[in-house]
């Protein structure tokens, strides 16, 4: 029930999703006496919970030259890691089974690429390269190394 009375005191917690954020907004709008800091923190927390996992993926992918989303138990992920290490590249690896929100990302990646299992997924220079077959194909046809150099992951 949306609060309309100006004296309404919202008793939301951080785990209320949509209602919480709306309540925060409305509350902020209606009452200036409430601490800005708390509200903003609450909003930020709510926003994080709400954020599209793919957006998070994109954000993480852009933070490093070579980003691999992996599962620690996945052997194909191990193979792709070894491939990059063998080329002298130092990839940033996110083990989704060790991330509290890894499951979401895994599901999102599965929707994105349609692979099962979803991992490994490789980003170079923030751009999606794909799964093991795409990585290998681009390595064999000679496009991987220029891509790595462009992203600054490989010198020489």
């Amino acid at each position, binding site marked *: 029930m949306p609060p309309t009375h100006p004296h309404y005191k919202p008793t939301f917690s951080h785990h209320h999703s949509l209602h919480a954020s709306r309540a925060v907004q409305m509350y902020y709008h209606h009452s200036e006496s409430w601490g800005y800091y708390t509200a903003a923190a609450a909003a930020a927390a709510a926003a994080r919970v709400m954020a599209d996992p793919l957006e998070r993926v994109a954000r993480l992918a852009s933070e490093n030259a070579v980003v691999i989303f992996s599962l620690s*138990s*996945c*052997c*194909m992920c*191990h*193979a*792709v890691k*070894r*491939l990059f290490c*063998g*080329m002298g590249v130092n990839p940033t690896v996110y083990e989704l089974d060790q991330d509290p929100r890894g499951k979401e990302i895994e599901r999102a990646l599965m929707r994105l690429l349609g692979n099962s299992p979803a991992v490994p997924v490789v980003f170079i220079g923030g751009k999606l390269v794909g799964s*093991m*077959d795409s990585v*290998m*194909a681009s*390595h*064999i*046809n*000679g496009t*991987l*190394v220029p891509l790595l150099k462009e992203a600054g992951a490989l010198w020489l």
Partner: protein
Amino acid sequence: MQSFKAAPTASDMYYHPHYFLRGDESSRNQTRFPDLGELEQSAAFHHDDAVDLSSSAMFRLKSGNVGVVSPLHFGGLNTNIGPSDMVSTSGTGVVDTGQLMFSKGTAETATATVASLGNGHFENWGESGMGDNSQQTDTSTDVDTDDKNQYHGVQHGALVAVDSMDQSKGKTGDQKTLRRLAQNREAARKSRLRKKAYVQQLECSQLKLTQLEQELQRARQQGVFIATGFSGDQSHSMGGNGALAFDMDYARWLDEHQRLINDLRSAVNSHVGDNELRILVDGVMAHYDEIFRLKSMGAKSDVFHMLSGMWKTPAERCFMWLGGFRSSELLKILGNQLEPLTDQQLMGICNLQQSSQQAEDALSQGMEALQQSLVETLSSNSLGPAGSGNVADYMGQMAIAMGKLATLENFLHQADLLRQQTLQQMHRILTTRQAARALLVISDYMSRLRALSSLWLARPRD
């Protein structure tokens, strides 16, 4: 060896004394049996039952006038062909030739046939080949002076025998002589034609034999695989079918591949234009795509069969990597046979060599990780015997292990992709002519490896 006694009966021996005479070993040497020698060489690699061999041998007996009576003699000549094979055919050969002989009606004609058969093989036979023949046969009394002339200079024994017999008979007319000469020539020509046909048939059967042997070996391995495999449950029987289906598809693919390669080879040798060559090269490349498609289907139905390499010959299997050839090795096989290469091409080839090697290493390490993880799963302490009450744990661990096994198919798929892409990249870098040569070199290497397997399987064992 016992069957030697059974085959030629006494009555046969009586009617065909010239066959009986072959027991004289001292005058024999290997050159007397040129057909047999060829037989030995061509059949040396085929120790399996030679289906076509018996009919060929029969034919040889008809045309070559060989009496295969002495078992000892045979054994000396021929260690690879089981003597029993030859014996059974020799017996029937004798009978058949006898039928051939007697169907002509007259002894005279029969003699002419005999003599002319000998004549037809005149150049092949040793000195007293025909001499022994004519010496002790009743029907050879008609071998007269003119026949003697034909054997002149070679058949000394015959001369003596014929002379004495001839004089006792009295003079024969020139007309009769001329007729006989003509008949002899005719029969000689026919026997030469027969020999030619026989040799062709022999070569065909040699080819068939190689194929049969390969199929037999494959089927045997497949039979062993199924027999010693897991307890027959539904999934396994399906797997067995998938494996057999792939084996058959692969055999067909291989035949077609050989045909395409032969076409390519003749095109390269006859220096056809680039356009025509490109079509042939593209055809071979498309055919390679076909095998990868077949392998992918085979992996879906039976990944272990694909990984085992039981569909390959032993030597290929020994040096195989992850269900197929090593893509990095492909370029080593080519070596410097692609020269001259432009600088850009050279760099492309070197990069391809390096990247395929790196990809192979990565996949190999992934496979090792898989095996390691399976070891850990299966050797986990929680996998106690069912009786200890850890059934849930056991099933849980087994489920995990099953999941890990499922990734095998992915690894095989990646390995095949790697092989396919290496071939395609090589095709892209090279010119049409270079690509044609490369495909021929690669195909020759593979077929030599397969031939090596056959030779090894057929090697004489102590």
